[in-house]
């Protein structure tokens, strides 16, 4: 359809990778736009993880069945476990050091 080199599998992987890039851009915009530390962690902890998983799934579909796909699958698994734990650790450190959360109607911090 697009030339000799692009097939149906490649179209599906392009869709996954485009979704992944959209969620990562949304995570970065959330990091800049939200008014408080705790809400910024909401944006990055969720959007970043899913954006990465979608993007690496796109790479896996592009590659097919080989050993590189197994290594990419382990990378997905590790990121799924590690990113929420890192987010939770730094949020707990901030809460017990005394950083106050933001209520609606205050100024930006």
């Amino acid at each position, binding site marked *: 359809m697009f030339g000799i080199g692009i097939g149906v599998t490649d179209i599906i992987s392009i869709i996954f990778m485009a979704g992944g890039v959209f969620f990562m851009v949304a995570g*970065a915009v959330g990091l800049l736009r939200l008014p408080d530390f705790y809400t910024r962690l909401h944006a990055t902890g969720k959007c970043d993880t899913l954006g990465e998983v979608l993007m690496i799934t796109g790479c896996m579909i592009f590659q097919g069945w080989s050993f*590189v796909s197994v290594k990419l699958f382990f*990378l997905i698994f590790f990121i799924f476990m590690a990113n929420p734990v890192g987010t939770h650790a730094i949020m707990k450190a901030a809460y017990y050091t005394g950083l106050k959360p933001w209520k609606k109607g205050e100024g930006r911090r």
Partner: protein
Amino acid sequence: MFEMVDVFLVVGISIGFTILLCLYRAVRGPGVFNQIAAVNVIGTKVIVLLVAIGYIFERPMFVDIALLYAGLNFVGTLVMAKYLERGEICSA
């Protein structure tokens, strides 16, 4: 019309631009916690950038480097969080 290498190039450039966006929060964040969160996010995006570069230059070794850097980034964030909460890393 277009090859898969062009797709990976566009993806790589977009992620590089996103990393530059996060750099603002790493420099200006009021307090140290915003800066640590921004560095963690930059590290996470670098993992994806390494996989994309591996596909552009057609070297499958870059996936191993990405796996290693994921572990390093995770351990670094946990150590910083533990130090800020308790004031020491290992209580000997």
